[in-house]
């Protein structure tokens, strides 16, 4: 063998052995920091064509996800809801750190598809239509929960979960928890804490805690004194039989002191 080539191969062998622990450590650090968490496994291979799978592997995962999102968009335009969950699952699996994909995916399922299912004249009975609608709600909820698992500090996804649980499932206790999580994020929306208190006020058995939270918000000043907060406070003062001197509303009329 060529002397120089032999020396080059010897160098690559030695460096190759040295680099293995470095690569393993960096790989672990990147995964722990939430990078490259997309599962490009055999399941994904079956969903993608050979070329798109190779492209996804070669650093073009975001582009492949966008390409599949265009398909989602086409299905959405054609109201082809039945095939959408599969595509949405592919997109979100390719880009699990994209909050936007999780958000839009849940919106399509829980709001658009569910509404379409409820008004689907092909389904013969109200019960079947409602069942289909609820299945889409569940799909939307599942997407949001998986999105949050991949992005636990996402203010937006916690807010969306809070909204979905309250609007569709009427699970105000769980919605309060979700809004609470949204409010605890560093980039929390100014209204998140208030919404958490609103939902808690509708959660059976936690009225006392809700009242305390609403009062705390009320005492923060004019900025927090929104019509819903005032109405809920008034209702809870009556419901919890708050002593008159501690009430915001001293009588049963709506006049605020």
């Amino acid at each position, binding site marked *: 063998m060529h002397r*120089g080539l032999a020396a080059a191969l010897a160098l690559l062998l030695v460096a190759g052995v040295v680099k293995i622990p*470095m*690569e393993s450590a*960096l790989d672990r650090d990147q995964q722990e920091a939430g990078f490259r968490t997309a599962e490009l496994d055999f399941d994904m291979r079956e969903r993608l064509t050979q070329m798109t799978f190779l492209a996804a592997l070669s*650093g*073009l995962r975001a582009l492949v996800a966008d390409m599949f999102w265009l398909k989602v968009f086409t299905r959405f335009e054609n109201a082809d809801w039945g095939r959408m969950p599969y595509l949405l699952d592919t997109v979100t699996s390719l880009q699990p750190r994209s909050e*936007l994909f999780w958000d839009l995916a849940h919106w399509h399922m829980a709001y658009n598809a569910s509404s379409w299912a409820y008004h689907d004249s092909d389904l013969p009975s109200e019960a079947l239509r409602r069942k289909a609608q609820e299945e889409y709600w569940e799909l939307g909820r599942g997407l949001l929960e998986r999105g949050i698992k991949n992005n636990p500090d996402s203010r*937006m996804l916690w807010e969306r979960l809070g909204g979905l649980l309250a609007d569709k499932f009427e699970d105000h206790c769980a919605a309060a928890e979700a809004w609470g999580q949204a409010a605890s994020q560093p980039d929390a929306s100014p209204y998140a804490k208030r919404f958490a208190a609103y939902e808690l006020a509708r959660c059976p058995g936690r009225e006392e805690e809700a009242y305390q939270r609403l009062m705390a918000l009320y005492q923060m000043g004019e900025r927090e004194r929104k019509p819903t907060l005032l109405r809920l406070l008034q209702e809870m003062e009556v419901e919890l039989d708050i002593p008159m001197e501690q009430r915001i509303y001293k009588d049963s009329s709506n006049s605020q002191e």
Partner: protein
Amino acid sequence: MSEAPRTEALPHAFFSWNRLWAIATNTLTELVRLRVFYFLLIFALLLIVGSLFWSKVTFQQQLQTLKDISLGAMTIFSTLLAMLATSMMLPKDMEDRTLYTILAKPVPRFEYLMGKLTGILLLLGLAILAMSLVFGVTLGVRYFQVAQQLQGELGGATSELMQPSVEALRAEVFDPDLLIAIGLLYLKAAIFAAITLFLSTISSSWIFTVMMAAIVYLIGHFQGEAREYLMLTSDGSWLTQGFLGVVVILFPDLQLFNLVDDIVVGAGLPLSLAWKTIALGVFYFFIYTAASYLAFSSKEY
């Protein structure tokens, strides 16, 4: 009769930055003159500008799509540039007989090789810089358009409702991690150029080099899987273990530089992690460059 003044030969330096720079700039000039590279650059620019129109298709994710397409195009073109420019470098010098002229002079082979590689790095740097500038301008223009659109849609909303949307939009555009992402793209292209250079020193034609480089690029993206399998499994046949061992030792793990896909959707890259990734990239670069020199040093021309 007066004695003629004696001219003393200047001592020949073993290494000269001036000589290296001369080779590098010459290489850059040669590469820039090749029309194929202009074509690639223009195509990349078209793709980035064209993404403006594509992004209109998907409402609410216009900026993300624009970033995905732009950085994806930059990945493709920087990789292609690194592979094609490097693989053509030595065969072209041999064909033009420039290689023999240079090596006949007191220019160490190390200097020649480093000069050539520096030229490639300069070309890649210029190409990525040009694409980044177009990307930045496009993103800026799109930001103002989307911001105006948002203002129109939420015009009646209170500032409390509008504020998170505006802040999220701003954070998506003015994200310093995008610069790190572009830096990682450059690093990956530089590593690939060093690998292609090594292949070029041991192959006889540039087509063979291109094919080998493409294979190395693909295997480099599976190297992590092979390493994991090798470290976690012990019940494979000796043939499998041996093959995977060769892959793990000889090939770089190129997946470790694919952080752009996550950065582009707003995943913040910790500085320590960025430095570790850069350190491994620099290590790869020097190892493959050194291997190229060793293979090139004793080759007869």
